[in-house]
């Protein structure tokens, strides 16, 4: 298949799934970051675990090389902090914002205007920032397998099962607080309003 058509088809499936889960509603993330309803976190962690369980045996048989993201401390930490702040303000990320836009959320145009402006400003400051943020404290494409040594399949499977354990623990917390799955996209943070009459 043509690579562009492949990208489009993968994207349609991706956007459909994001919408069906409810993460294209900004309330889903606001609830998660306020620790009111952790559905968004459980979804992400489950997706990672499923990906590892499927892909690492294929990698072990030589069918695929997964690669890694480059570790450069300055950019990753500062960028992550900036991203986290934006995440809390918007309730959407670059992927879910597009699914929300397709789903007819007109106010996401404001986010898009900000996103394109942020991209443009980044392109302007990339060159002067690069020596400090990206080139220094750069450890290359480091993975947990390299850190711990040993077999990627084993490290991957141990990580995936620990992650699934964490997901079930988070789900138990949601059950304790009565945070229902179907209510994840309804904003519940107002319930902690000053009077605290709602238990």
């Amino acid at each position: 298949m043509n690579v562009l058509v492949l990208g489009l088809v993968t994207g349609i499936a991706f956007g459909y799934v994001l919408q069906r889960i409810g993460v294209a509603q900004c309330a889903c993330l606001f609830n998660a970051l306020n620790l009111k309803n952790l559905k968004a976190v459980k979804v992400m962690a489950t997706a990672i675990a499923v990906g590892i369980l499927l892909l690492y045996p294929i990698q072990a048989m030589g069918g695929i090389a997964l690669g890694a993201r480059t570790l450069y401390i300055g950019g990753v930490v500062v960028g992550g902090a900036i991203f986290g702040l934006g995440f809390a303000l918007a309730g959407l990320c670059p992927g879910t914002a597009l699914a929300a836009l397709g789903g007819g959320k007109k106010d996401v145009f404001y986010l898009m205007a900000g996103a394109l402006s942020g991209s443009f400003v980044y392109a302007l400051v990339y060159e002067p920032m690069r020596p400090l943020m990206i080139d220094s404290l750069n450890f290359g494409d480091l993975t947990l397998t390299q850190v711990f040594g040993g077999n990627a399949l084993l490290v991957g499977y141990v990580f995936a099962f620990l992650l699934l354990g964490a997901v079930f623990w988070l789900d138990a917390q949601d059950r304790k607080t009565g945070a229902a799955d179907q209510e994840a996209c309804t904003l519940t943070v107002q319930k902690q309003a000053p009077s605290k009459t709602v238990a």
Partner: protein
Amino acid sequence: MKKPYWTWWQGGIALGLISAFAFLTHSGLGTSTSYPRAVALALNPLVPDFVANNAYFQRVEPIVNWQLMLVIGIAVGGFIGAKIMGLSMGSEPAPSTLRKVMLFAGGFLILFGARLAGGCTSGHVITGITQLSVSSLIFGAVVFGTGIPAARYFARKGWY
């Protein structure tokens, strides 16, 4: 609403399958590079010399590639999903000025931060942690370490 949302485990499995499909057929999922690429594509006919000489646009060239099509597809998929679920589309009340500012600032920060860190929720968190990248684990920890106190502060302020 005609259809309910998928549960977290249905959604997590579906998302994991798409992530694995992307890895096997092209590369891991990622979206944020397509925003500066869209900027480069828009600016290129207007100011070709600026785009050609900008160090970042030399890395993120003004071309249409797999990820740009993926990003367009996400919007299409989001539309189909909303239709099938019977979500009310485009009928929300107009956002308040505060909400507009939060969306613009939030959009600015998620893209600036993602480009500086080298990925976003899809590229770093889903794809990068699936690769067991140390970089992505640090990114994820910092994002939630910042996002959780920020969101709790905004909630106390009554901004949501």
